[in-house]
């Protein structure tokens, strides 16, 4: 399995992924035209014909045996550039009067465009039959290698927006208590519309004034900054890389936004450069050994590649690859690659 940028002939592959991703993944609409546009955007990002701030880099997880596309993930260079990026900033209002001995801190939601210009950990989808075998880890964390290799293409900070809490029927208590009053539609519809990139309606319909949290239903209050149960593993992965809740939440479902400075991301900070040595004795990657794996990138750009190798392959300044591995990475003896432990060490 390896990571590479999407290619011009990937449209059919992408459409299959989109079809399989379901309604939960709004950034992968089951719509050929939309997916075509998404592909175009990535291709013009990787060939650098698109302005730096407008790029979205789409990566595919490929199965070298079948040549099937197993999953996809993306990095957005800068959010809120051609559209307006909305969040609620979770702030505090303090009402205090020494005269009558009242001191009350009230959580308050401010409609905000503050995250405009940040980079974003965007879309991720892995085909169900490929779950397991570290594929999710490889797909997700390979992006940090790209950030480490090309920090100049991104902002200082990067965010990830986490799907917020909704119950088993797909109802979001936050939406029921707030958005519904203004949007006159179901949560899923609103979410779908934004996924399609149709954000003008948000400016038109959103409540513009700050919302005092105690005015929302108890259930809504409790979901502010809370992720969907299915998103908890993704959140845990981000936290393990150093991401933290930044006090911004989604305007529809109040899911948290987490952020990190790119230079402080664990995989970025700890990754190192190595010289490639080719050898038939390169140790095989043991995918059952969670902590025995390294992410390795070829530091290429339009032919970017990332694979997993055995930790034992790395020693001071050099790394041993098999012929097959080197072929996938498109590197030779003496090439420079970047590598880092797939996961942070446990006791960290």
């Amino acid at each position: 399995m390896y990571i590479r940028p999407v290619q011009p002939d990937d449209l059919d592959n992408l459409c299959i992924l989109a079809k399989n991703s379901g309604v939960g993944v709004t950034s992968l609409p089951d719509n050929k035209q939309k997916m075509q546009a998404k592909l175009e955007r990535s291709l013009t990002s990787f060939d650098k014909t698109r302005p730096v701030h407008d790029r979205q880099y789409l990566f595919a997880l490929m199965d070298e045996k079948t040549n099937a596309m197993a999953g996809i993930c993306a990095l957005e260079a800068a959010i809120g550039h051609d559209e307006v990026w909305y969040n609620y900033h979770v702030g505090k209002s303090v009402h205090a009067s020494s005269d009558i001995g009242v001191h009350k801190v009230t959580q308050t939601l401010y409609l905000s465009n503050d995250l405009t210009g940040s980079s974003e950990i965007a879309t991720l989808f892995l085909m169900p039959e490929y779950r397991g075998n570290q594929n999710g880890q490889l797909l997700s964390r390979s992006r940090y290698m790209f950030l480490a290799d090309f920090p100049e293409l991104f902002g200082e900070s990067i965010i990830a927006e986490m799907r917020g809490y909704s119950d088993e029927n797909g109802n979001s208590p936050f939406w029921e208590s707030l958005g519904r009053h203004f949007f006159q539609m179901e949560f899923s519809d609103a979410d779908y519309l934004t996924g399609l990139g149709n954000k003008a309606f948000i400016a038109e319909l959103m409540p513009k004034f700050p919302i005092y949290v105690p005015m929302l239903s108890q259930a809504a209050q409790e979901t502010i900054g809370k992720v969907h149960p299915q998103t908890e593993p993704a959140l845990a992965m981000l936290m393990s890389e150093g991401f933290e809740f930044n006090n911004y939440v989604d305007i529809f479902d109040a899911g948290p936004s987490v952020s990190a400075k790119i230079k402080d991301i664990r995989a970025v900070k700890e990754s190192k450069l190595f010289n490639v040595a080719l050898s038939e004795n390169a140790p095989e990657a043991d995918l059952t050994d969670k902590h025995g794996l390294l992410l390795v990138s070829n530091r290429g750009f339009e032919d970017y590649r990332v694979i997993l190798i055995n930790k034992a392959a790395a020693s001071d300044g050099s790394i041993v690859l098999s012929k097959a591995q080197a072929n996938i990475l498109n590197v030779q003896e003496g090439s420079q690659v970047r590598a880092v432990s797939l996961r942070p060490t446990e006791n960290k």
Partner: protein
Amino acid sequence: MLVVRPSTFVDLPSIERLLNETDARVTTLPKDRDKLSEKISRSDDAFGGSGDPDKPASFLFALEDTETNELHGTCGIDTHAGSGYPFFNYRLDEVVHASHHLDISSRVPILFLSHELTGKTLLQSFTITPSLKDTDAFELLSRARLLYIAAQQERFNSEVIVEIQGIFNEKGDCAFWDAVGRKFFDLDFLTADYYCSVKSKTFMSELIPQHPVYVPLLPDEARANIAKNHEAANRTCQLLYREGFSQSKFIDPFDGGPVLTGNLHQSYTMRTLKSKKAKPSNVIGGLKYLISNQSASDFRCTIGTLVDGIGETIRIPLEIAEALNVQEGDSISYSPL
């Protein structure tokens, strides 16, 4: 005979008794002797006319039975609502949320904190012995203020406002308060109300939530009570509507009760008010009128029957003249009941 006159310090214990008898919410009449005494003192200054006439002044009147010397009610006027500080209300407005693209258009009711009524003439501190509630005395006490204003128009803004008691139950629970103010003031309704009457205004600006309140976010009961008056205020509202007052866009920020507004010059009292020279006489028959002596400092107003005709003099019953402290040739003003 029931007469409305300026209150004095002598009235203090009677007012306290009155406040205990009635459970109407009279924020402007504190159940605290020092504060009450302060209020009468301010009123004294106002009637005395000392101080800058452009500065806020606050008048307090008493309804007295001249036979028993008993006090049966109070009413008041502030020349400047807020008395120089913000006079807080919520203004019930609507915002339109419409999307061209989605062909959605809806009007969302919203409450904006507003100072707009600051500085208007405020009728307040109305309280009356329960047994007199359904008598003419109610009207006398309420409308006497307009007769006082009429005689002193330069001191008052011609826009007049009255805050009407909103809805709360016997236990003192107020759904509007619980949904809005309580979340910031951390006090139950009655306590907040009490503080309002005895504390300086500072705490209001410190505690009142500054951001608008989207009405759809409020619980049903609170929403339903917006701009609704308490049953106990029905008579007051009726009387004010007849005066030409009407519901404004403003509500009380505490209990959500309506604020009625009216223009002095378009009020029933002003439109029907006449002023003539009095001639104390034995008068028999006639229609009932509110009659005042037009005095700024020693105001008197009562109800009597008059036979109005042409000419610049009007005969008034001897006992009325006495109650109003009026001699032959003094001006009186009168308006039909």
